[in-house]
């Protein structure tokens, strides 16, 4: 496929993606940069040759990632330069398209050797902070609360990281935060201003400011949300603890073995951990999200 005739050119995580598919969630790339990745509807294999993973809906090998989402479609990420989507019969194309905005884009990042972290990046008084942690720890809700308080959010759920000249750099993904309906209500946000990830789920892509969205940001602090310490408390980590928490919070770390990249990312994370502060931030959801956001800003401002 020629990349010059593609209708849209997007920038996600510093990667230029060309497509005929309209993604209102993504930032258009107005630069003269060539298309690096083509994203298109097309034929997707039902299985991968040489699948190295043992997951029910995911197959992986060195160059390929195949995701089979029931009642949506199959998604194939190939050699870091192509994403192909085949909708399942009867699936709504809008749902099929939006499902490509999560793990599929993260796998593209892995294939292009980004450090893909599970979480989002926010800028607090000029300071880039990566907020990570396991699912259901409240990362997205905290990011949304910080955004409401005027902090700029440049990614949520998946964060594209590179170490460049001894600095940890985050590349913006797209200006949406994924929030569940209850979180929208707690944040006093209107569900109708977001878009459902799928028509049959109460999980929404909620828009955040997209001003200066393509600027990359230096990260000096990684904050791991956890229920292992008191709500609203911070604990600074050192040594191996830093590396372990970073490694554990890579996006879908179980993919790296089948990709043949465990060793590669162990070393990348080790390098990253020497360049950032890593701290735990307690959240067992006994404090309100506003309170947590205030404590977070206060700590990041004074640290």
């Amino acid at each position, binding site marked *: 496929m020629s990349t010059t005739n593609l209708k849209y050119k997007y920038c996600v995580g510093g990667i230029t993606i060309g497509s005929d598919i309209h993604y209102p969630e993504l930032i258009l790339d107005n630069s003269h940069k060539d298309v690096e990745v083509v994203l298109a509807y097309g034929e997707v294999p039902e299985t991968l040759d040489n699948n190295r*993973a*043992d*997951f*029910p*809906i*995911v197959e*992986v090998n060195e160059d390929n990632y195949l*995701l089979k*989402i*029931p*009642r*949506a479609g199959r998604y194939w990420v190939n050699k870091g330069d192509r994403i192909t989507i085949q909708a399942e019969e009867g699936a709504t194309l809008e749902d099929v398209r939006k*499902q490509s905005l*999560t*793990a599929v884009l993260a796998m593209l990042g892995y294939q292009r050797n980004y450090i893909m972290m599970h979480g989002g990046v926010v800028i607090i008084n000029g300071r880039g902070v990566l907020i990570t942690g*396991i*699912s*259901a*720890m409240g990362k997205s809700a905290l990011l949304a609360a910080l955004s409401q308080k005027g902090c700029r959010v440049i990614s949520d759920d998946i964060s594209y990281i590179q170490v460049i000249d001894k600095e940890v750099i985050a590349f913006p993904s797209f200006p949406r935060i994924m929030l*569940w*309906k*209850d*979180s929208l209500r707690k944040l006093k946000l209107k569900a109708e201003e977001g878009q459902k*990830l*799928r028509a*049959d*789920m*109460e*999980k929404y892509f909620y828009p955040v400011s997209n001003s200066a969205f393509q600027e990359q940001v230096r990260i000096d602090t990684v904050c791991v949300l956890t*229920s*292992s310490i*008191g*709500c609203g408390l911070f604990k600074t980590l050192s040594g191996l603890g830093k590396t372990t928490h970073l490694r554990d919070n890579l996006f*879908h770390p*179980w*993919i790296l073995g089948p990709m043949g990249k465990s060793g590669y990312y162990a070393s990348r994370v080790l390098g990253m951990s020497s360049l950032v502060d890593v701290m735990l931030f307690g959240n*067992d*959801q*006994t404090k309100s999200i506003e309170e947590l956001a205030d404590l977070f800003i206060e700590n990041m401002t004074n640290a």
Partner: protein
Amino acid sequence: MLNTNAKFIWLASYPKSGNTWVRIFLSALLTGKEPDINNLATNLIISSRQLIDATLGFSSSDIPEDDYLFYRTRMYEVYAKAHKQEYILCKVHDACILKGEVLFTPAITRGTVYILRNPFDMVASTANHHNVSIEQALDYICSPEHALANRRTKLNNQVSQYMGTWSQHLQSWENVHHENMLLVKYEDLVNDSLQAFSKIAAYINIPHTKADVLQAIENAAFQKLQNQEQKTAIKMAPHVKKFFRSGKVGGWRNEITTDQAMRIIDCHYDALLKHGYIDTAGNILV
């Protein structure tokens, strides 16, 4: 007899039946130490979203639960295969059967310890745990639809767990695992701790002496757990004011009304009779 071809030993129960207490005891027995209630050696729960995601290979929160439900047995198999230990102790609140499918098949099951508590005491504990009235707690344990973490408008750190009524839950486990299941009554754990806990240790095949079991019972004593809870919140239930309540058997007489007790009998007559919690005339024996 344990199925030594498999690894999972399910610590199964309806909620508020003593599951945490048994896991604390096992943690104490396995480590020989007084357990930290927030960091047990037996903390694994099968509904953990982390476990589901790592075995599904994908964020379960990005697709509807029904779309991966029927992969769950295979996912547990994958999990067991990836772990090197001889056996995996795992807490379960789900019913064993969901929508006609056996979730925890005998093929992946080394053994099952089913902890059974009389619903008269349990319902008061349930009301406290969920901060609801006794009537609402009764609705839960008499509802064929009862489930935990089932709210579809928020993300929970556990996937939903379908349980059904108290007696349906029990029957689902009995039906599937009757050939290889140790049923332990909470009341025996309280009234005859040494024998009841020793049975669990023997069934799981944990090497132990009588002194080991006595020490582990001592380390898992309610008073000690309550003291710990006063100093530190329970991570698995941060919103519950008092996780470890009295733990007494028969406390229901001061907490629920006769009508409420009758409603329990109406809902669960056969199972109550079978397990000696009532007599044929409907008199409560606990």
